[in-house]
């Protein structure tokens, strides 16, 4: 039993990492009262950016490309919603569609329509001396790619930043009462733009993680709804960074459980395991919605 625990925990962390990155980014966006459904597109654009960047400049180039891909989607969302004042939901949907089309087209144009298995350089696990020796959890938690440690730092850092700094307070104020925030001298549009850009970059980083720390290659539509699941995780985590991190862990555990069940040779059809994260999202949303309090201005037209 103990033998199975370490791989299970390791798989949990591995699956949770991209979800946590995307959800933490979207948390920033939603705390300013905006909702970016285009997060799914940012994750996908990030995955493609990672492939393109890694082909040119190795793992570092890959992560840079991933963030650039996500930033591009975030920038487009900011332009459409904050400058043109287009509808947020439809803009987000269109940006996801754009990412699907653009990454598919570029991938086929640059790497051939056959989709021959391309290998991007990957960042291997980086064991943290000392901590990795902790029994049971050590290896699972501290023998991961560097990007996972970034999440360990980012979640508490964001929690502190939102709760304890002036800038964090300003950001939260915009999400509750944008008019009052503007009256108090906060540059509402500038903060929102920065939040959307940061959210896009983190979404892109999540996509980059899929390519550079997990799959080692790009597949069309490889985001597979992770951006949408991350949107649900923000609700589940009640718009708080540490809650969001926990929510991501829950989803990671559910996905890891599917590997465990499959390994145990359960008779159930494998499609049930594939559908499990999406079903869990529905169940979690139904359970969480009533109790959570969203930022008051969330999704309101500008």
């Amino acid at each position, binding site marked *: 039993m103990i033998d199975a625990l370490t791989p299970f925990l390791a798989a949990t962390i591995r699956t949770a990492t991209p979800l946590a990155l995307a959800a933490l980014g979207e948390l920033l966006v939603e705390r300013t009262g905006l909702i970016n*459904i285009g997060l799914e597109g940012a994750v996908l654009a990030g995955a493609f950016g990672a492939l393109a960047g890694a082909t040119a400049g190795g793992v570092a180039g890959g992560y840079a490309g991933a963030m650039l891909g996500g930033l591009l989607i975030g920038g487009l969302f900011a332009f*459409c919603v904050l400058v*043109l*004042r*287009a*509808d*947020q*939901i*439809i*803009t987000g*949907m*269109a*940006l996801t*569609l*754009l990412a*699907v*089309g*653009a990454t*598919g*087209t570029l991938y*086929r*144009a640059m790497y051939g*329509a056959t989709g021959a298995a391309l290998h991007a350089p990957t960042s291997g696990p980086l064991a943290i001396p000392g901590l990795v020796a902790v029994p049971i959890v050590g290896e699972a938690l501290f023998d991961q790619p560097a990007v996972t440690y970034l999440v360990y730092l980012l979640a508490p850092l964001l929690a502190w930043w939102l709760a304890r700094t002036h800038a964090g307070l300003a950001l939260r104020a915009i999400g509750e009462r944008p008019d009052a925030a503007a009256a108090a001298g906060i540059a509402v549009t500038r903060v929102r733009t920065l939040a959307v850009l940061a959210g896009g970059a983190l979404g892109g980083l999540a996509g980059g993680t899929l390519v550079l720390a997990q799959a080692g290659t790009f597949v*069309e539509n490889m985001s*597979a*709804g992770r951006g*949408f699941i991350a*949107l*649900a995780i923000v609700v589940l985590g009640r718009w708080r960074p540490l809650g969001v991190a926990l929510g991501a862990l829950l989803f990671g555990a559910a996905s890891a459980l599917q590997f465990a069940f499959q390994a145990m040779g359960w008779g159930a*059809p494998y*499609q*049930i395991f*594939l*559908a499990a994260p*999406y*079903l869990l*999202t*529905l169940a979690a*949303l*139904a*359970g969480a*919605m*009533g109790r959570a*309090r*969203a930022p*008051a201005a*969330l*999704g*309101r*037209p500008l």
Partner: protein
Amino acid sequence: MRARARNVRPVLIALATVAAIIAAIALLLLVGGYDVPRSIGALWTGSVGSWYAFTSATLVRAVPLMLTGCAIAVAFRAGVFNIGAEGQLLAGGAGAAAVALMLPQAHGLAAVLALAAGAAAGAGWAGIAALLRERFGVLEVISTIMLNFVALYAVSFLVRGPLQEPTHAYPQSSSIAEAIRLAHIPGAGRLHVGLVIALGITLAVGWLLRYAASGFRLTIVGESPTAAASAGEIDVRRETTLAFVASGALAGLAGAIEVLGVTYALYEDLSPGYGYTAIAVALLAGLDPWRVIITALLFAALEAGAGAMQRDAGVPSTLVSVIEALLILGVVAAQAIRVRRTSSATAVDDTADDVLQERSA
């Protein structure tokens, strides 16, 4: 004179849109380094260049796009962001296939039964999201997308499990009996009578939305739920749920018609994303089912032509998604700019506003 000007304007807008789309494609092809004249030529021959291409490629694709576009129009009008037409279409295809396979020796009436089963399955699939929205306040944007994935895996399970053909060699169901299939339209290649059904229903739904009291109620609810409830004494929840479920039924019917008229069996890849294209179809039509007929034809031709472009000129067919996305962005941006000039908020924004307010309360 005024009336004539009003009739001419939409035609001009339609022509301008087509010209803009072709220009955008040409530009993207140029940037991508493709043979532009050859690609555009393939786009033309693959979509409207011949009677065969027009009927068997374009019109066959227009049937599901019309119905799913109509489904999106009904939902969005009522302020319901149903992104789940794809899943509802799959549910409808599965429901129709299941019923059709249960009635192997039946006559034409069985086809009606199978179509009804498809519509019911689509309505049921949308009903899950409608229930989650009304009972638990779950954003339908997220729930319908999740249900699209679930539907895909459910069909994948069905064609490898309960509905798999008897030899268990292929991930597909048995073929449905000849008598249940939708007849081909004589002299029109692979085109089937599903076109007549889709046209009839789209015209009828458009009429309901324009002239009937029920359609008016639905639009009012979409534009201003609070006003509808207070001044119109309309049961807003009932109207939105009804629109959501009706939307699912339309998408489900699209899936049923695909199975009965095109594939004759249930496959995993029953839909190449009609449910997603439908969003562009409906938005470009200004959420008006009558105009959906035109925009569905436009996108059907575009997708048929894109297939030919990939075959003949090596242009990735995913280019169409880029065009669709740019069109949607163009439409919402234009709407937002127009609305800002005239009033303060759009119908869609109002709804999202009220729904979210209600939920956060």
